[in-house]
């Protein structure tokens, strides 16, 4: 399973380098990568490298944060967006544009604190005396999302300039990817990835239910906090670099669960590979179908991932 997905990933990366408004045959791509080929081909391929790397990073981050959130909340609706990550990032980007006139690269640094603040508030409201329960976390996320989206709408409706730039950012795109953006979010992403790998086994305990997990000696509060921290780091890094791409974090855990079942020790590595596959494929599709225009990857992920999810729903066992 894992080997197959890695092969898929390799194909997706090569396609990401070869295809676009100006397609290049695969042998020439490989030649260019190893330093050969003519200067023109090399330039085109090299210009696609940062974007492909960004796709790898963002896809992996989104998929893993989805796996973690669905594990923590035990809710198939679980999505990092549900805990306020995307909306927090969006709200602080809007604030930064409105009051400080930030734009371009600065949005990265605007998105991160907002995402953390939002998740912090969600965890605070969502955790009671007995620790956070899945239902309460989800409700708290709905509360924070509602209030922040009201704020975003109020700002964008009354300040046309803010709306003007916000409507481009909110679609979600890899087109702005360059090495600086990538290096900026890399530390957060790596920290989140490491934490996610460490959380895989404890999440299996949590899946048995809070009481059983506690009986087995697991510290459910610590697991939840660790998982939330990791999911936030991952999703905030992804959102900061590419804008909110909502669907990957929701769809990949469902696909992964259909393939390997409920063991998080398999879900994490498989999500790590399948997330980028989905995102890169979507990005390539967006570049190819409307050539020479581009359709943003945020739009394509929805139209690629959603039908897959609908098919998965049809195949769900009867009685569920």
């Amino acid at each position, binding site marked *: 399973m894992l080997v197959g997905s890695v092969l898929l990933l390799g194909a997706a990366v090569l396609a990401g380098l070869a295809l676009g408004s100006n397609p290049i045959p695969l042998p020439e791509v490989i030649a260019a990568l190893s330093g050969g080929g003519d200067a023109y081909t090399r330039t085109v391929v090299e210009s696609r490298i940062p974007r492909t790397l960004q796709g790898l990073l963002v896809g992996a981050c989104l998929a893993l944060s989805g796996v973690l959130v669905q594990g923590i909340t035990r809710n*198939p609706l679980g999505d990092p967006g549900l805990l306020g990550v995307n909306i927090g990032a969006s709200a602080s980007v809007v604030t930064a544009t409105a009051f400080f006139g930030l734009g371009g690269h600065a949005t990265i640094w605007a998105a991160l604190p907002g995402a953390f603040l939002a998740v912090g508030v969600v965890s605070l409201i969502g955790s009671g005396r007995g620790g956070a329960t899945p239902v309460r976390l989800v409700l708290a996320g709905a509360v924070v999302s509602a209030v922040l989206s009201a704020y975003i709408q109020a700002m964008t409706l009354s300040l046309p300039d803010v709306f003007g730039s916000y409507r481009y950012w909110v679609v979600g795109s890899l087109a702005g990817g360059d090495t600086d953006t990538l290096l900026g979010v890399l530390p957060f992403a790596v920290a989140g990835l490491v934490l996610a790998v460490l959380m895989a086994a404890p999440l299996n305990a949590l899946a048995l239910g809070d009481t059983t997990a506690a009986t087995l000696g697991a510290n459910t509060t610590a697991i939840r906090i660790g998982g939330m921290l990791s999911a936030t780091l991952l999703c905030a890094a992804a959102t900061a670099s590419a804008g909110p791409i909502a669907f990957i974090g929701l769809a990949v855990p469902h696909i992964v669960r259909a393939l390997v079942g409920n063991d998080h020790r398999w879900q994490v590595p498989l999500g790590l590979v399948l997330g980028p596959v989905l995102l890169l494929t979507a990005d390539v599709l967006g570049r190819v179908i409307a050539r020479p225009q581009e359709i943003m990857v945020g739009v394509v992920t929805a139209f690629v991932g959603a039908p897959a999810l609908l098919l998965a729903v*049809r195949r769900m066992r009867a009685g569920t």
Partner: protein
Amino acid sequence: MHTSGSRIVRVGTSLAVPVRRRALVQGLAVVAALVAVGIATLTLGGLGIAPERLPAALIDIPGGSEGFVLKRLRGPRFVVAVATGAALGISGALFQTVTRNPLGSPDVIGLTAGAGAGAAAASLLLPGAVSVPAGAMLGAAGATVVVFVSTGRGFSSPSRLIIAGIGVSAMAVAFTQYVVMLQSRDQAAVLHAYLTGSLSARSWQNAAVIGGALAVLLPAAIALGRRLHLIEMGDELADALGGKAEQTRVWSIVVAIALSAAAVSVAGPIAFVSLTAPQITKRLSRTPGANVVLSALTGAFILAAADLCAQQVPVVEDLPVGVLTAGIGGLYLGYLLVREWKKGTV
């Protein structure tokens, strides 16, 4: 089911309705609050009718500016707000009970997102030919059909319904955002405002649409609400008691969808009322089940109060009411959660 604090009210021999005292008091309190909001809506502000003249004006509608305010400006707007809020409240109550998910609402199965995409498509592809509200209605219907087909089992499986809804929503939202990005800035701003949900400049025609929908669907919703209560004891027991579990679930969802589609057609996709109203109701009345009537009243109150703010409060004036419902509803739900957290319940 004869719990403490409840009385059986009998009308003739065929109708017996259990009435819980707490629920009755709560219902009356919400109605009183709703009347207060209504009076404030009609009397406040520069154009408001003087409070001492209001009773006379309501009985015998005067001409001039007072008549204009009552007949054209604020009267229909208030009626539309109440009816739309009630429709959204019921729809949310049915959805949340059937799906057993506090997030279950027409928003979740993609209806609202579908309405948004329909509106966007109408404004992009056929500007002028299809009006934006008609587009929204078509989009809502389209999204619902796609969800119905893609679950493979219609509306009978709640968990499949929600997941299919998420998929359809994701596509609809992505399409809407893409259209908003493609359009010229002015057009995009108009669409953006519509997609927030607004009650400004509503007419009696709008009131008739939503009022008619309520008149037909409210009795159905109440009947279904009682049967849903049986289902919560488990499908087999419910079937044995004549609850017809499967059938009840399907019809509850059909009614919920029809109500929120009617709401979308008059007010645009107003977020969060159908999500919060049942939650607030449940927490105040402390009863399980759908609480159809109380959720309707609470929804009506939330929307009417939010619209009053949208008309009169200085900072948020001119903002569509959808912004405020999300803000107010969200903050209140947050307050309830924090209060429960302090008490250590739930």
